[in-house]
């Protein structure tokens, strides 16, 4: 299996760690996950899901899950452009307002939504033929 889930969402990690390869960086914020995705893309991965999923703004939620795929060490230019735009957009929002220090109940709600969005893809990914 070539797919890897990059996430800082413990709900995603707990539910899918036995089924998928997961890069779980729990302490990371939203922007750091995007930076890590960019690192991976420059190491030969490509994006399978859009790094700006959901209508939750980058300075609202701290949780981000992205699915990538090993690309046989070729640089995928579309992934590069997409991640750079996502970083630019996130930085724009964070410049004007930092992500609040939410309480645990709200953090849990954000985890739930983030997981729901990535789940829709994970449930189908076994049909994806390379």
């Amino acid at each position, binding site marked *: 299996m070539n797919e890897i889930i990059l996430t800082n969402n413990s709900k995603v990690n707990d539910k899918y760690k036995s089924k998928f390869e997961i890069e779980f960086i729990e302490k990371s914020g939203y922007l750091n996950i995007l930076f890590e995705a960019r690192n991976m893309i420059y190491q030969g991965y490509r994006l399978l*899901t*859009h790094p*700006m999923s*959901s*209508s939750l*703004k980058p300075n609202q939620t701290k949780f981000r899950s992205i699915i990538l795929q090993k690309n046989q060490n070729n640089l995928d230019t579309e992934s590069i452009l997409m991640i750079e735009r996502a970083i*630019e*957009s996130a930085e724009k929002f964070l410049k*004007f307002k930092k992500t609040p220090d939410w309480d645990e109940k709200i953090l849990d709600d954000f985890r739930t939504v983030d997981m729901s969005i990535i789940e*829709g893809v994970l449930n189908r990914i076994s049909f994806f033929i390379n």
Partner: protein
Amino acid sequence: MKLELGKIYIKDIRFGDNTEIKNGTLIINKKELEEFAISDERIKSVTIELARPGESIRIAPVKDVIEPRVKVSGPGCIFPGVMGKVKGVGSGRTHALVGAAVVTVGKIVGFQEGIIDMSGETAKYTPFSETNNICVVMEPVEGLETHDYEQAGRLLGLKVANFIGEVARNIEPDEIVIYDTKPLLEQIKEFPHLPKVGYIHMLQSQGLLHDTYYYGVDAKQILPTLMYPTEIMDGAIISGNCVAPCDKVTTFHHLNNPVIEDLYKRHGKDLNFVTVILTNENVFLMDKERSSDMVAKIVEFLGLDGVIITEEGYGNPDTDLMMNCKKVSDVGTKVVLITDEFPGRDGKSQSLADAVPEADALVSCGQGNIIVNFPKMDKIIGTLEFVETMIGGYEGCLKEDGSIDAELQIIIASTIANGYNKLAAKGY
């Protein structure tokens, strides 16, 4: 497909002994409606409250807004595949209570959206300060899972809207508007010299609180398809989306899609409004490629001269928007985009999360980042407990006196990306 839309204008709303319409006033039997509404075991309590234009009332947090309608004749029912059997809709006669709206209110998640002010400076940013609102304030049973609560809330709103819509069945409408779209070849024959225009309607489709349904089918699962424009007027599309108040397309907005309304006004005059093409905004990049390829294929196959494209949401839907724009342009069809912007509070940053050179004709619905002051209101329907966690809100934005300083994007439909609002952008 021809639909007669009978508009019954509602100018006032009040509680009374019977649920009925009298001289333009919608009267609701509060107890009867509350008892009817609570029949879902997932909902612990339902309270019905009324909010009229001009009253000092703030409604929060809002989940969906629905215009009550009833299918008087023709196949199917309002909200087919959801509130009744699946059957193609959009023909015959439908009655609508114009000026009335069912508003579902209740917490689903901690960062629940959005606000409607019925008066004051901020009322002008939402169309629902001008409707007579039947607010359905709901509370879930203890420990109800979020997906279940979202679904229960969604169905509750539609159920209440249908209950109220039923009273319009035998009322003589104040106005009847006829919308008529013929099959493609007939319509081209009817207006052979007019440019063929289509409307690409992008549906939010990402997951919990980000979903839309077409005949009850989750839009994440659809492939681009054709829709007669009148189908939307009978509730073929309903909203399950409620995470970004300002550009949320409520079920009301689907029923009253302004692009469809305006295209019909010019149909047969300076354009031939041929069809609506529905597509989605999935997170899976392969889905984005597939859907945009198929949209362009349909456009080329139909021989459309021009299309208007609208989206819902910010961020990755902008990528779908640009993919659709580029691929449709590549097949030789002219494209105009309608969308809202997030250029930061000073308006100087990049407005959209994505862009292509082909996106050179765009109508803006305004920007959601500017801070506005929300005056104190005498009454709150729902709760302000979540205002600071809503998109557009922030810690300290809710003042002790009940006033709020927050971004415009906290107001329901303030910058809605199909243009059903009063904001725009001008170039100088």
